[in-house]
């Protein structure tokens, strides 16, 4: 996925359209020749291009309903323009701050607690001497990644109800039984802890690969210098995986306003909307359940634009800081 700075950008590098008509006609001549030579290749990729146009670019065009009062009977083109009305309504509604804050906070806490977890697991796995035990732990830790979200949410719900197993423990230690999923203040911890449970093992794969790439000689040199195991981790292991950590961190920051809505939709309920409702779950509810097409499309478009800016910014920072970037 990542590309180093030296590599040519993927697009446009071969196409030069100069000011002169000579060059332009030359370009079209070459294009014509290319289309002829590679005819069968373009024919092969045609279904893929059509797929992208229909299912990715048509919705982008369809997003202009955010600036219209869309009525299904009139279609996208026939519906009247309303300019930025839906955006204004959204920014001035009381929902705006709630869902903006929730999106940011859920994402931020996931980053704060969920990002280091697989790194720590990978470092600890790396210290295990018994290869077989290590592999067993790895295989088991991947398991939750394959369990469907519906089942994960179902288990969370079952374990957190008032007479569920978690409340049995709370009572055992002298606490009061609480309906955990009905408590707004507990939603984020439940979401983030279960998220760590789901992804800690899967997330560690990439760091384990980076760890296995560290040269054994570095460890030997450190040992000769008298570094104990702990010092080796600080001075050899962590610097060795630092580039991977930085890349993963930048990728995560680019996704900061892009919270996985499926688990939220499965777990939240009106009593936890205050802390649980994020931008995309709001779009889902208002758009697909209450059919406010244009308004929800405006909210969704706002989210897409914010996400896009964040990715561009993260990539720019990455290119500056680490000389590694997505493009």
């Amino acid at each position, binding site marked *: 996925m990542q590309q180093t700075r030296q590599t040519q950008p993927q697009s446009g590098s071969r196409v030069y359209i100069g000011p002169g008509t000579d060059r332009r006609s030359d370009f079209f001549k070459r294009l014509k020749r290319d289309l002829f030579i590679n005819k*069968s290749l373009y024919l092969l990729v045609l279904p893929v291009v059509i797929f992208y146009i229909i299912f990715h670019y048509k919705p982008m065009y369809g997003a202009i309903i955010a600036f219209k009062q869309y009525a299904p009977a009139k279609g996208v083109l026939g519906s009247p323009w309303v300019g930025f009305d839906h955006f204004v309504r959204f920014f001035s509604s009381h929902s705006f701050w709630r869902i903006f804050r929730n999106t940011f906070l859920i994402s931020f806490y996931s980053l704060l607690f969920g990002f280091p977890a697989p790194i720590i697991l990978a470092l600890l796995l790396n210290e295990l001497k018994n290869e077989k035990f290590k592999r067993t732990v790895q295989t088991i830790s991947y398991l939750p990644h394959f369990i469907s979200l519906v089942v994960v949410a179902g288990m969370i719900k079952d374990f957190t109800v008032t007479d569920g197993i978690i409340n049995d423990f709370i009572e055992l230690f002298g606490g009061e039984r609480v309906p955990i999923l009905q408590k707004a203040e507990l939603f984020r911890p439940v979401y983030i802890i279960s998220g760590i449970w789901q992804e800690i093992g899967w997330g560690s794969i990439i760091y384990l690969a980076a760890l296995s790439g560290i040269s054994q000689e570095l460890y030997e040199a450190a040992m000769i210098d008298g570094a104990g195991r702990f010092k080796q981790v600080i001075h050899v292991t962590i610097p060795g995986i630092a580039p991977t950590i930085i890349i993963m961190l930048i990728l995560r920051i680019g996704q900061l306003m892009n919270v996985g809505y499926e688990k939220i939709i499965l777990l939240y309920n009106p009593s936890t909307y205050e802390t649980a409702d994020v931008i995309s779950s709001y779009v889902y509810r208002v758009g697909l359940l209450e059919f406010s097409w244009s308004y929800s499309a405006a909210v969704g478009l706002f989210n*897409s634009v914010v996400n896009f800016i964040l990715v561009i910014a993260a990539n720019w920072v990455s290119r500056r800081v680490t000389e590694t970037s997505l493009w």
Partner: protein
Amino acid sequence: MAKIKKSAGEIIFDCFNILFMIFIIVITLYPMLYVAFASFSDSARLLQHRGLLLKPLGFNLNAYKLVFKNPMIVKGYGNTIFIVVVGVTLNIMMTSLGAYFMSRKNVMLKGPITFLFVFTMFFSGGMVPFYLTVKDLGITNTLWSTIIPFLINTYNMIIMRTAFLAIPDSLEESAKLDGAGHFTILARIVLPLSKAVIAVMVLYYAVEKWNGWFWASVFIRNRELYPLQVILREILLQNDTNAMTGGINAMDQEAISESVKYATIMVATVPVLCVYPFLQKYFVKGVLIGSVKG
């Protein structure tokens, strides 16, 4: 010194590390074991039980019998299998076409077309316009609505392209000299040499399809066409006892539904869990291909 002795601190650390790993194993496996034990348990006893469950309470298969007698679940299973088999086949075909194109050299429009694909990873029109697009095509309320709009996952296509790039050019060049066209090169040379990445793709897409519920719940209104996960959602999260017991008029519907719930989870999850350990080396490979230069 022949051998470096471990210091006391190191020994303590190693012990704690092993304990921590055992903790990871327990918290990962226990929820699934709990579900397994509960599914074999006697419903009435399960309802009264408090605390950890270390073995099934009693042992019977009543819950499973009810699950397999429930027409909704059986149909859901069939729908999901259709979506996985047909969907993944089409996924692989389309993804390899795109990946093959992206891995070619000396093609003038490769840059713009690749950009057309990759740009969609960073910007989208949003959920609502996407829904309206699919609705306008008239495929909602069919199983195709869970297949056709999701034919290609761009990230997977890039993984596949990276694998295709690793195939030596000389093989393709000699095939070209023999007069082979692009389709022949793809079908006869590139795909047979990419079995590992295809295994990864099949696994990724199959898990995505097997576990998918969101768009199915949005697009499909006809209950006969619900895939398994949508039914599972009704049972587990929306407390639809009718979906659970298939409308049978049981006196103790609540008690029965408790263990049926767990049996349904088992039936929906075990197939995936049976497959993944064997494919482990492949999907680890997939994560790695995806992470290196693209």
